[in-house]
Each structure stands twice: as C-alpha cells, then as structure tokens.
C-alpha cells in the first residue's frame, strides 16, 4: 500500500540527490527479517510502560470520581454561569475530535496522495484517531444533566413515538461522530490484519497469544487473492474516510455556526475548523511519535526526513488557521455589525485578552519557526512545539466557546466564566482515558505497519539489476537516503 514508484534518471545522466523522495526511504532498514524483529520486538512490556499505564489509569480514576460527584451533585458544580452554558466539556469535546483528524489525514488522505512519509507514522496516527474519537464521544454525555438519557438522540422506534429532529446540528453531530468512529476503527483494524498475521506466525511462546492473534488475523494467509481484494477495500475505505474527515469537523462547526451568537454565525467555520483540527492533530502526532521513536528504538523507521515532511504539513495548516483568524477579524470589521465588532474587541482587548494571546502565540507565531529547516529537523524542538500547539488549540476552542457566550447581544447578559475543579478533574480524566488506550495499544499491536514498511524496502532479487527488478518492465529504484540523516 505504500508509495514506492518514482522516476529514475537515464543511465548516463549524472545522479543528483533526490530530496523529494528522501522521506520515503529507510536506508538503515536492510531486510524483512530486520523489520519483523525490530517492530515485533517493541511489543514486550517494560517497567517504564507499566508505570506509564499506571499514571494514565490514575488520571482516569480521578476523572471517573469527579464525574460521579457531578452526577450526584448536579451540573451546577461544573462552573457554568448562565448564559455561558457551554464550557470546558464542549471545548474539550471539540479539542479531542480535532486531534483525531490528523490521524485520518495521514492514514487516508496522504495515502490517496501517495505521500511516502506517512508509511511509518500512519499506524500511530490512526490509533490516535480512534482513541481521540472515543474520548471526544464521552464529552457530550458528560455535558448532559441526565447522562443516562443520551440514547434519545439515536433514531429508534420508541414508545413515545418521538424521533430526533433531523434539522438540528446536534443530531447531525451524533451521526457524524458515530460514523467517524465506526469507519476509523474499521480502517485501523483492516490495516492491522496482515500485521496481526505476522504476529501470529512469529508467536512461539504463548499459545494463548497465538490463538488470539489467529482469531484477530481472521486466518489471513498472504495470498495474492487476499491482497488483491485487500488493496481495493483499503483504497475505498481511504476514499470514504477523506470526505468523512472533512465533513465531521464541518458538522461540529455547524453546532456553532447555525446559532446566531456573535463570533459563531459565520460561513468560514467549516474550513476553519477542519484546518484547525488537522493542525492540532499534527501537534499530537509529534507529541506521541517523537518519544515513541526514541523509547522503542525506531529512529531509523521514523526518520528525521519523515519528521521534516510532517512538520511542513503542520506549518501549512498553521498558516491556513492563521489566515482564518485574520479573516475573522476582517469580516467583523468589514461587516459593520456593531455587535460583532464589540464582541471581537472584547475577545482581543477585553476580558479574554489573555486567552487570545495564548491562542495567537501558540498557533500563529511559534509555528512560523518551522520555516527553518534546522528546527523542522530537530525532534526536541518539534516535541516542545507540539505541546504549545496542543495548548494553543485547546485555547482556540476556549476562545470560540466562552467569549461568545459571555458577550452576546444584550449587555445585561454579559458575564464571566471560571472552570471549577470538577471541570479540571474531568479534563485530566480524559487525558488518562486517551493515554490508557494508547498505552495498551502500543504493547499489544505494532505501532508501525510491518507490511507497508516491507513494501518500501527493496525486495531480494536473484539477479540484481541497476534499476531494480525489470521482469515485468517496472523499475523500483533504491537510492541512498538524502539529505543523509536518518537517526
């Protein structure tokens, strides 16, 4: 499934470094045996992993205990201050949905575009998507006064003969997120099948694990027939996921844009939300992949070239988001709408100036450092920047939700908002929930797609050919890594 083909120079043409394809190559990975050994080798649990899992579960327990307290005491403990009736829960819901988007972008959209650098990072990003959507899906339920009634949003025949209102963006949201979760997890699982077959075939110690892998691999045998249908199904799932990922955050943005609230009622919201989602997701990808490549000894799989290419994507989405911010300011000024102008003045210079300052610094100014190749190729800087991107994008949603609701049309309604310890406890719990699933995933299933990595390695040949195999007229050339650094 990986991108491999690239043009080759004629035999007598002088060779030039192929910088454009540098992010495809893995010069330190020599053969299939090495791929299996090193990637499967990451699955053995370590003390550090158990400690990490313990911390994640501890945070999750804090979140659960806080939620129990909220159910017992009522939503009033959550810091809502009418008319600010959307707070940390909706902000965090949008944040986590956004995190998931980069995963689908990397696994599906970049697959359709044959972007080589996705090969070694897409599995992590895809798993991140599934777990982020699982986390996001909790927040609308946490936000309900009676969370046990959440199923009222699902259309099913019921004794009340009442159906959901299909003109409501909240109902669209339910379907968008359920569809997104179903398709993302299906896409993740389908991609995992050949790799689980590798685990099944290499498992010689535990018969229980071997049996589990046998069931999960669905009896996959690597036949040409299976691969033929697999490739087609994978392509169509990627093709479905691509408009889906764009639609899901557009639908989330409709939750805001369909309302008449100042700052929300704008047609720029769908593309603005989608770009912001991908930007925040790229931040989370760096937060996850940079420590993983170090702890798992996978620096020669997720190379500096891969990080460089992903950083360019992060920079691009940052520029799109920055452009959307400036368009918002311009529209507020150009519209001549006093309410809108007053709201924006309050957002930038008024009571919420500090949150806007965090947002613009983290999302518009700091990512500009990625214009520097040196910083794009520095894992340390990318890791630091990923935290500022995550913080900035959480505050972007804060700035969208809270300043608008606290500064609507009627001045007597203008108010403030301060989250309580309950909000913070549940926010912490959401990170625990997400991290717990991710920690479990990285030690049970391969974090790098084994079959796809093998695809980009030069195959063993009986008669080596200067331009790769030519038995069918195709030439897959293997070049030295360029610009040269891979670890």
């Amino acid at each position: 499934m990986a991108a491999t083909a690239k043009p080759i120079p004629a035999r007598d043409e002088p060779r030039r470094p192929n910088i454009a394809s540098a992010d495809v190559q893995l010069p330190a990975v020599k053969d299939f045996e090495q791929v299996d050994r090193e990637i499967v080798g990451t699955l053995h649990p370590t003390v550090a992993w158990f400690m990490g899992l313990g911390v994640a579960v501890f945070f999750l327990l804090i979140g659960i205990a806080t939620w129990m307290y909220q159910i017992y005491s009522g939503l009033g403990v959550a810091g809502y201050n009418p008319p600010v009736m959307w707070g940390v829960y909706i902000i965090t819901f949008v944040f986590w949905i956004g995190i998931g988007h980069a995963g689908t972008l990397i696994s599906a959209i970049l697959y359709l575009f044959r972007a080589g650098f996705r090969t070694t990072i897409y599995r992590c990003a895809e798993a991140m998507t599934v777990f982020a959507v699982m986390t996001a899906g909790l927040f609308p339920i946490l936000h309900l006064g009676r969370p046990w009634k959440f199923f009222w949003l699902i259309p099913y025949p019921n004794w009340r003969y009442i159906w959901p209102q299909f003109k409501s963006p909240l109902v669209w949201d339910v379907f968008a997120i359920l569809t997104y979760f179903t398709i993302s997890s299906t896409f993740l699982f389908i991609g995992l099948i050949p790799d689980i077959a590798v685990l099944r075939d290499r498992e010689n110690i535990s018969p229980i694990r071997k049996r589990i892998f046998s069931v999960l691999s669905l009896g996959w045998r690597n036949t040409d027939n299976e691969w033929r249908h697999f490739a087609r199904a994978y392509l169509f799932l990627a093709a479905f996921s691509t408009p889906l990922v764009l639609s899901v955050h557009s639908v989330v943005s409709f939750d805001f844009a369909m309302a008449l609230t100042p700052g929300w009622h704008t047609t720029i919201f769908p593309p603005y939300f989608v770009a912001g989602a991908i930007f925040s997701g790229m931040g989370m990808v760096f937060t996850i992949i940079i420590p993983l490549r170090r702890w798992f000894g996978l620096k020669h799989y997720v190379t500096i070239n891969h990080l460089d290419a992903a950083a360019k994507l992060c920079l691009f989405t940052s520029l799109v988001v920055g452009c959307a911010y400036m368009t918002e300011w311009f529209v507020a000024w150009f519209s001549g709408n006093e309410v809108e102008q007053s709201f924006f003045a309050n957002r930038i210079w008024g009571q919420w100036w500090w949150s806007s300052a965090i947002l613009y610094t983290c999302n518009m100014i700091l990512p500009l450092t990625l214009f520097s190749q040196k910083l794009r190729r520095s894992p340390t800087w990318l890791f630091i920047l990923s935290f500022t991107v995550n913080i900035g994008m959480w505050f972007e949603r804060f700035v969208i939700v809270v300043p608008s609701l606290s500064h609507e049309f009627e001045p007597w309604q203008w108010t403030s908002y301060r989250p309580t310890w309950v909000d913070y406890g549940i926010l912490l719990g959401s990170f625990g929930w997400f991290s717990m699933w991710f920690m479990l995933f990285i030690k049970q299933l391969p974090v790098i797609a084994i079959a796809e990595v093998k695809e980009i390695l030069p195959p063993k040949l009986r008669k080596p050919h200067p331009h790769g195999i030519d038995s069918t007229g195709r030439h897959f050339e293997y070049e030295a890594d360029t610009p040269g650094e891979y670890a």
Partner: protein
Amino acid sequence: MQGVLGAFHELDAAVSAIEALKKNGPGLIRVFTPTPRHELEEAIAAPPSPVRRFTLIGGLLGVTFGYWIAIWVSDYWPLVVGGKPIASWVPYTVFGFEVMVLIGGLSTVVGLLINARIPRLTLMVGYDPRFSHGDYGVWVECTPEKARTAEALLREHGAVEVRRER
C-alpha cells in the same frame, strides 16, 4: 486439495516461476507474498477486484436510507422549523452523506471478507509462516500426474524448497 508448493527467497525468481507455470498450465496457481507487489500482480494477471461493486451498492443504499428515514420521520412528527418545509432536503444531505459513508464503508469490508474468503478457521494447505515473514510461495493445485512437471518448473526457476501437499 492437492498440489505442489515452491518457496522462493527472491521476488524475480517467484515471478519467473509464475510466468513459466502459466505458460505450461499444470493447474491453478496461488501465490503467497508478505507484501503486495506489482510484479506478482502483473504476472498473475488476475481480474479487477469486485469489491468496488459492494462499495457502490452499499453507498447508494446508505444515501437512500439516510434521506428516506429523515424525510419519513419528519412527516411522521411534522414540526415546522424556521418556516422551512417539513421535509427539507438540504439539511438532510448531511445525514444522507453520513449514512452513505457508514453503509458504504461497512459494505466494502463485507466485500473484502466475501471475496478474500476470510475469516477462515484453518490456514489453507501449503501455507507456511515464512510467507508472512519474507519468502514468496507459489502453490500449484494439480493432480499427481501433473505434479512432476510443476515441481520441475519450480526448481528450474530457483525455488529453495519444493514439496507436495494434500
């Protein structure tokens, strides 16, 4: 099911063996490969996968169902919102699209399972764990009379191991 299995370390050896077997035609050929390769795909020359039909039909059924249920529910419990028609197709497009993706995606998976004949409880005759690891396998389903020809062809083209299976 009986036949001959040849295991190859090298891709070009497997490709040339497949081409020779196809020319001589001792029986149905099945190839095991750790990763999909265009070279093998072209040597086998299999027809396009019918999974696309499952995707198309699933997508069309999904979008139809999505619009239908939204319109039916609106007529069942008529409620005028913002002076718009009871059955407003524009907002229902969101719902129709989501259900199209959902049903289309799931029917693609069903298409994969049916056509690839998975899940299966037992691995087929001739399968060897090394084929998920790095080697290529060429399985020729043939009668014992034709097995000798198949074995000779596989060895001639560089098979590191040839064995009869049943």
